[in-house]
């Protein structure tokens, strides 16, 4: 599997990553070689094999629906880049 510049630009956009124009050739080369490596999987016949998502095939534990968390908004927002009156600030979304 070989990627070209437009593939890398599209993937970077989907991942919301700004990539420096000058770095695109290197990403293209590296990502292509990684995909060549992972393409080795196609040699293995996995017809009918159940995919394994969790090593112990465990399921989510359930708990009683009780309030266990305290409101720690101020403490948790203290590490945010920009907050105002308990709200996280981001650039204007709606004109």
């Amino acid at each position, binding site marked *: 599997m070989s990627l070209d510049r437009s593939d890398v630009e599209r*993937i970077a956009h989907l991942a919301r*990553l700004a990539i420096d124009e000058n770095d695109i050739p290197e990403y293209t080369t590296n*990502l292509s070689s990684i995909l060549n490596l992972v393409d080795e999987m196609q040699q293995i016949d*996995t017809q009918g094999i159940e995919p394994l998502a969790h*090593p112990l095939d465990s399921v989510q534990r359930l708990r009683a629906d009780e309030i266990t968390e305290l409101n720690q908004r101020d403490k948790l927002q203290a590490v945010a880049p920009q907050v105002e009156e308990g709200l996280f600030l*981001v650039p204007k979304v709606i004109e």
Partner: protein
Amino acid sequence: MFEKSLTELAQDLSSGNLSSIELTQAYIDRIAALDPQFNSFITQTPEIALAQAKAADEARASGNAGLFTGLPIAHKDLFCTEGVRTSCGSRMLDNFQSPYDATIVARFKQAGAVMLGKTNMDEFAMGSSNENSFYGAARNPWDLDRVPGGSSGGSAAAVAARLTPAATGSDTGGSIRQPAALCGITGIKPTYGRVSRYGMVAYASSLDQGGPMARTAEDCALMLNVMAGLDPMDSTSADQAVPNYSATLNTRIDGLKIGVPKEFMSEDLDPAIADSIQQAIKVLEQAGAVIKEVSLPNTRMSIPAYYIIAPAEASSNLSRFDGVRYGYRCDDPKDLEDLYKRTRGEGFGAEVKRRIMVGTYALCHGYYDAYYKKAQQIRRLIQQDFARLFEEVDLILGPTTPHPAFKIGEKSNDPVAMYMEDIFTLSLNLAGLPGMSVPCGMVNGLPVGMQLIGNYFDEARLLNVAHQYQQMTDWHKQKPATV
């Protein structure tokens, strides 16, 4: 003092030969003097350490000391520590002071441990050399031009350099075992779910597992006693009884059936490492173990399967770093998309971006079956291979890494060459099995690690065999010339 193990230091503290303040101050001074050459710490926490040491000495004076009271350790910088920077080796979290403690950090505090600081690591635990750290590569104490391994490279280097008697690590594809092997220390990756992941910054959630790194198996047991166990805050933590890992270290191992996979002793392996492993096998045979050649036919496939599954999970986990709630934010974003893209583009390093992009690609509509589903099917095959072996053997043994520590810069421009170094460690994470690296030789002045692989929740047996091996050998007592 710096040659003493945690276990020996615990005896000195208990007998009153040493106070935790004296011990802690000695390590603080040593880190300040020597770490500039190793770069094994991202953050040193001397004030916290001394306050904890004082509290530990007071607890002991009032008769409230436990086995871990007053013992110094360091935490890998992906475990959240309240009020202390938790950077994960990334510019993204360079300014992040965690508002809470990871469960294992809290457990060590509860046990009376002293935190010396936070150790260097590959950014977001992605790497096998520690070169992907925003804070620069940690260096291997055995040869400062070589890598300590990764991603828990700072923890391994700090323990090998006697800057701390022990440290925590995390292992997603070998990140405890590989640096332990390359630095000549002992480390164990427990069964998936054995140790809580709460407050451990996520890389690949179905593979990540925290564990101990120390100089001896005995010390790893002491640490795992503190770390292991069910945590209501981690829904994947295992609801399984935790044995006293120290209690079975001296169990005899005669009659123990050990399988050696022929795929691990293959042409990928440095012949000098193969010799060390053969020597280690002879030692275990002398102790009564029965060795059998076995096969793990899908070993090679663990590389492609891992390098789809881990990046796929990472691409999802790391979407939380968006410049809104914590961590780095770019200057003057012009709109929300610009905020996301530049924050992430500037905040993440190259390898993290590569893995996010591989994961994003693998999960794209149209490629999902060819990559992600295929990788999960191979994951099942790998798990089945191990399950078959554990019907006939008690333990699996092989090398931890195909080569000893490589030079800084040697593989950093070739991600695929770097990934190949993980060939013997990845399959355990895919299967969720516990594994351990134990020093078992030296090649050209560099340490070699033997890997022991156990069945699910059989950490006690791994520690037992490693401890018995360490009673008969002194590879774990070797000390780098730089120290």
